[in-house]
């Protein structure tokens, strides 16, 4: 399974006075099993891009290939695309609606037309995968859970559809530090267990540096740079010019005068110890 986006363009309100190019010649590739971070400031076109990958928006021109299937071609069934690509929107807890957690998580799989046993099994698996206990939450109303738990349930609702690509739009926005950590751990855990592609949009550079294999930087609808976290975060000037930042730890080590790009705590400790010894 891999994703290939070629010269993707999207123009809102084409032909109207309010016409606006949201994406311009976006091209990148994602290899099988990669955890990809997409960064860009608010309004840079990230959300528009994600909705294309899921078939919710139609490209003005260009193509998207997911696992060898060109989903931008007319006639490709939406059900087929959504089986392959699962999209978790920003603040997904606002889309919960069922009377209890188990039913809410089952909504997606049920729409895929699976058998009851299959649905039940997937629901149990998805709830466990997001770090909740099936027996204790299954009969509770999703509205009485805590913020972090609500979000976990909403993510489980998409995971239960077993998409081969999982896309999350700012999954940690507005959460407290513990819930933030839980969701992040959950994402890496899902990635480790399924080995599928995960695409993560975040404003938290630290998170991206920590868990991503590849980083795509977007600014005003264009891909600015693509590379490993090390490659991307060594271009501090470029990131700042598009309204982004370095991870705090990288910034800190830069301020100490460490020349290399440092992305995690252990590395930083080692470098600082070296610095003191000198």
């Amino acid at each position, binding site marked *: 399974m891999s994703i290939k986006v070629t010269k993707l363009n999207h123009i809102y309100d084409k032909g109207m006075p309010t016409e606006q190019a949201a994406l311009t010649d976006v091209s990148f590739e994602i290899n099988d099993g990669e955890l990809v971070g997409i960064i860009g400031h608010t309004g840079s076109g990230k959300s528009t891009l994600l909705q294309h990958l899921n078939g919710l928006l139609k490209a003005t021109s260009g193509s998207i290939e997911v696992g060898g299937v060109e989903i931008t071609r007319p006639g490709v069934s939406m059900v087929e695309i959504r089986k392959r690509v699962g999209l978790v929107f920003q603040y997904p807890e606002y*889309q919960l609606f069922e009377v209890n957690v188990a039913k809410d998580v089952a909504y997606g799989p049920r729409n895929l037309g699976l058998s009851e046993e299959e649905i039940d099994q997937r629901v149990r698996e998805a709830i466990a995968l997001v770090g909740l206990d099936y027996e204790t939450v299954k009969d509770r109303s999703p509205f009485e859970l805590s913020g972090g738990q609500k979000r976990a349930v909403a993510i489980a609702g998409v995971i239960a559809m077993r998409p081969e690509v999982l896309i999350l739009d700012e999954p940690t926005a507005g959460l407290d530090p513990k819930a933030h950590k839980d969701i992040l751990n959950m994402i890496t855990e899902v990635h480790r267990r399924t080995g599928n592609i995960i695409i993560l949009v975040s404003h938290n550079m630290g998170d991206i540096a920590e868990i991503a294999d590849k980083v795509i930087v977007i600014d005003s609808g264009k891909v600015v740079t693509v590379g490993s976290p090390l490659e991307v975060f060594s271009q501090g000037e470029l990131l700042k010019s598009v309204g982004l930042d370095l991870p705090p730890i990288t910034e800190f080590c830069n301020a100490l005068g460490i020349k290399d790009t440092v992305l995690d705590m252990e590395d930083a400790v080692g470098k600082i110890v070296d610095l003191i010894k000198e």
Partner: protein
Amino acid sequence: MIRDITLGQYYASDSLIHRLDPRVKIIATLLFIIELFIVDNFIGFAICAAVLAIVIAVSKVPLSFIMRGLKPVLFILFFTFALNIFMVKGEVLWSWKFLHITREGIQIAVFMAIRLVLLIIGSSMLTLATKPLSLTDGIERLLSPLAKFKFPSHEIAMMMTIALRFIPTLLEETDKIMKAQQARGADFESGGLLKRAKALIPVLVPLFVSAFRIAQDLAMAMEARCYRGGENRTRMHEMKLRKRDFIAFILMAAFLAIIIIEARMF
């Protein structure tokens, strides 16, 4: 898709009609409606239509835009026309089994249809040429004398303002929720009526929850800024009647006089 819905139907322009005081426009609309009911012959309707045509021309609102607003009421128009044409008794012109068409029936049906069309276009001119917010301001000011009788004119105007303000917000919210449920495989476009209605539950429940959340946040924000209703409240945009508003009043009075005289004469 859902963003294409135009509600409130304000047509932005900078015409004389747009610049009139909202109170003048509200009174003019009410008068126009009353006049339509005073009129009892076709000459009177011709005068009303002519006045309306002048107002439309001055307002610079395209006729096609106004006609689009007529579409949803076409059914009612047709229904009343059919009722009148078959129900009114008089000189029978044509009959089939229990259906009779009479001369009087045709006359009244046409009469009512013209009255309805003028009524709808006339009142839609008010919303087309007045910003929703100045409209509610105008209503508040016009109703304010009733405050003596404990009538909550400010509160009602504020409710209308808030409702209007949140139409786009809620549309956006609906769009977002629909997309999220579509990503979970929801299908809003196929199936029979019952299936489609059922498919909307996953949209409506979160939408209601959102609406309550937004309302609560707004109430909190208003209280944080010491909002406590209309008493002693001053406003940023004071409404003042200008020369053009008085001229409009004079023209309205002249129009009313003509209509009354015309109705007496014929």
